[in-house]
Structures are given as structure tokens and as C-alpha cells.
């Protein structure tokens, strides 16, 4: 337990220090959100309608941005070998790393969402639902991304390949996240149905992500 806790604390510390790049995701998210009106036009009614979907897309892309460092940094400085050889189960170590990564990069996106919602003219009730769906949905993105990070760990320029591998797998999360965020609109009256499925997807990814990533890492070593 202490090994996992110290791994978690270390990852959190590394992510928030200089070179960690935790906040770049939020900055990217802000830029995506502020580019949208340039593309769609400053029509507030339109932005209000597509706003939740855009926030989800922005958060999805922003969470991809930092994933390539999730394991690759440890691979470069050799600490990954220590993690692999330690007595702590690799699955748990990876889960701890992914949790730390989510707190450092995913949670800031969620916290920034209410503020960015104002830019897209989303009303107060909808701000709540979008933020809640992102809070529940972004861990699924991180834990699915963990698999991609493990697969591309030893590659130079693995980040681009990681996005290509992971984005198709993120389709269900995006569908149910946006559906829950749009709840109350005529085409999606119910909030509970998509939201509970989104919770289910997150739970599945919490289990599958660390196991698949651990298999990939173990088999990736020669």
C-alpha cells in the first residue's frame, strides 16, 4: 500500500512541477473552445445548442494530449523497470499512475468546464450536467488511454499513434457523455439512462485499462 501511495504521490508531484505539463491540457482545452466561435460564427443560440458536445470534444482531445507521457517518461528514466520488477502488482501500480495522471490532467479539465461553458453561452443547469458528465467520463478516457500509452511506450513519436489507437475506443464514452450532457433536450429527454451507462463504461475501463496495459508492458519487455 505504501508503495502505491508513494508512487501516486510521486507522479502527482512530477506532473505539477516544471516540465510536468499538467496544465497544458487545460490551456489546449481553452484554445479549442475559443476557436469554435471563429469556425461556427458568434451565434450564441447555435453555440448554446452545440456547446456541451464541443466541451466534450475539447476535453477528449485535451486528455489525449498528455497521455503519451503517462508511461513513456518512466520508460525513459528507467523507473518503469523498477516498477516492473517490484513486488507491487503491475496492474495496481498502473492504476495508481493513471489515478495520479487523471488528478493532474483530467480533473483540471473538469474544474475549468463551468468557466468555459460561459464562453459557449450554456445555461446554469446545463453547466452542472456537462461538468458532472465530464467528471464521470474523463477517468474512462484516462484509463482507456493507459492501454494506448502502454502499447506505444517504447516508440519515438508514439503520441500520434496513441491518438489513432485510442480515439475509436473512446466512441462509446463520447456518445453517452454527450447524450447525458444534452439531457432535457427534445431528442434526449432522459438523463439517467445515458448517465448510468457512462458510469458503467467508466467502471469497465477502470478494470480493463490497468490489466490490458500491464499485459502490454510485460509482453513488450524482451
Amino acid at each position: 500500500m505504501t508503495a502505491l501511495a508513494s508512487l501516486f504521490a510521486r507522479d502527482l508531484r512530477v506532473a505539477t512541477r516544471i516540465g510536468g505539463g499538467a496544465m497544458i491540457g487545460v490551456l489546449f482545452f481553452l484554445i479549442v473552445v475559443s476557436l469554435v466561435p471563429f469556425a461556427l460564427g458568434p451565434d450564441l443560440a447555435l453555440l448554446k445548442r452545440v456547446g456541451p458536445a464541443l466541451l466534450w470534444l475539447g476535453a477528449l482531445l485535451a486528455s489525449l494530449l498528455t497521455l503519451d507521457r503517462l508511461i513513456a517518461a518512466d520508460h525513459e528514466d528507467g523507473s518503469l523497470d523498477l516498477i516492473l520488477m517490484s513486488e507491487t502488482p503491475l496492474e495496481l501500480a498502473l492504476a495508481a499512475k493513471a489515478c495520479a495522471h487523471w488528478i493532474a490532467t483530467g480533473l483540471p479539465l473538469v474544474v475549468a468546464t463551468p468557466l468555459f461553458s460561459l464562453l459557449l453561452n450554456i445555461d446554469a443547469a446545463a453547466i452542472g450536467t456537462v461538468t458532472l458528465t465530464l467528471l464521470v467520463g474523463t477517468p474512462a478516457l484516462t484509463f482507456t488511454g493507459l492501454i494506448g500509452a502502454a502499447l506505444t511506450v517504447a516508440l519515438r513519436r508514439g503520441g500520434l499513434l496513441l491518438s489513432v489507437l485510442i480515439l475509436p475506443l473512446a466512441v462509446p464514452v463520447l456518445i453517452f457523455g454527450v447524450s447525458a450532457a444534452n439531457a432535457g433536450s427534445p431528442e434526449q429527454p432522459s438523463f439517467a439512462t445515458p448517465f448510468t451507462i457512462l458510469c458503467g463504461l467508466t467502471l469497465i475501463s477502470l478494470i480493463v485499462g490497468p490489466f490490458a496495459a500491464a499485459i502490454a508492458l510485460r509482453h513488450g519487455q524482451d
Partner: protein
Amino acid sequence: MPIMDLANPSRFLSLAGRVLPWLSAAAALVLAYGLYRVYGAPDDYQQGATAKIMFIHVPSAWLAMALWGAMSLAALGTLVWRHPLADVAAKAAAPIGAAFTLICLITGSLWGRPMWGTYWVWDARLTSVLVLLLMYLGVIALWRTIEDPSRAARAVAVLTLVGALNLPIIKFSVEWWNTLHQPASVLRLGGSTIHPSLLVPLLVMAAGFFLLCAALLLASMRNEIFRRRIRTLQMMQAETARG
């Protein structure tokens, strides 16, 4: 290590060399007979001759899914038993699967143009096949990124299995999201809803497509084994050149 790797594939090569001509001939014959039956099949009372594209579309859709299943089995073979041929089969299956997925999408959109009035609609089944194509392309991209074939095979195997787990979820979620396509009508509870005059040619075509796919897979596996041998020889040559 390379010598051991080659031991089993050699037997496979001689077997493949003997089977392949027969398999190709059988595929050609069955496909020719299937096309003849398709030609003789009645036109749809609403869709006319356009509906006949189904005889290509449906078998390729089946194969697109079946090949991911085959890749998943091969992935298990790679991860669990470390079978050297499993990597080869998985690698050979990916481009073939992607090609059948693409054929399925193209024939579907050609059919959709006169029927739905547009080449592409964001209908559930089209979209999930599109996602399947993206996943095939991702697998091919991963194969083409990692240089060492056995390490690439293990990485791809993990991705394939995660994909196999995810594909039903993707299919379910996309269907929940939007549906317009006609539901499956050949394999379903309560019997097929297709008239025998259409069903028989469809099944013949499907058999032909499966034979074609098997022949392509076998040929492609053979090429992959040759490619690996060349790679090993080149590395040995480089080793001796270094002295």
C-alpha cells in the same frame, strides 16, 4: 532463436503451397457460380436491380467482423501460447479485414445513393462499420510502427483483444445513438426473413467470399513468412559483414 522460429513455419509453407491452388480454384468457381445465381435472382420489387449489390455488401460485412474474430483468436495464440504462426496470421488478416470493411462501406454507400438519396448517412450500422475500419487501420499502423516483428505482434495482440472487447460496446452505443439501417434479416430468432430465391445466392456468395478470404489469408501469411526470412537473412548478413 530465428532457426527455432522457422522450424514450424516451414511445414506450414509446404502445406500452404499445396493447398493454395485448390483453395483459389474453389474460390473462383464458387464466386463464378454465385455471380451466375445473383444474375438469375429476381429484382427487388421496390429497389430494382440496385438491391443486388447486397450480394457483395453482406458477405464483406460478415467477413469484416469475422476477420476481427480471427485476429482475436490469433492474438490469444500469440499471448498465451506464443505460437509463431499466430503472429503471422494476425498480421496477414489485418489488411484483408480492412479491405473487406472498406468494400462493405463502399458498396453500402453506392447502394445508399439511389435508396437514401445520399452516399453517407450517420446511421448506426454504417457508423459502427466505419469505427471498425478505423480500428483495423489503427492495428495496421501499430504493425507498421514497431520494427521487431515479435514485439509488434504482442502489442497488436493486446490492442486486438481490447478492440474485440470494445466492438460490441461500440456497436451497442452507436445503435443507441442513432438507427436507420434495416435490422439483420438472415440470422435472427424466428428464422430468416429473406426469400429462398435471394437467400441461396447470398449464401453461395458468402461461401465464395469465405474461400476467397481463406486463399488471400494463406497467400498473405506465406508472403509474411518469406518477408521474415528475408529479414533474418539480412540481419545475419549484416552480422557477418560486421565480422
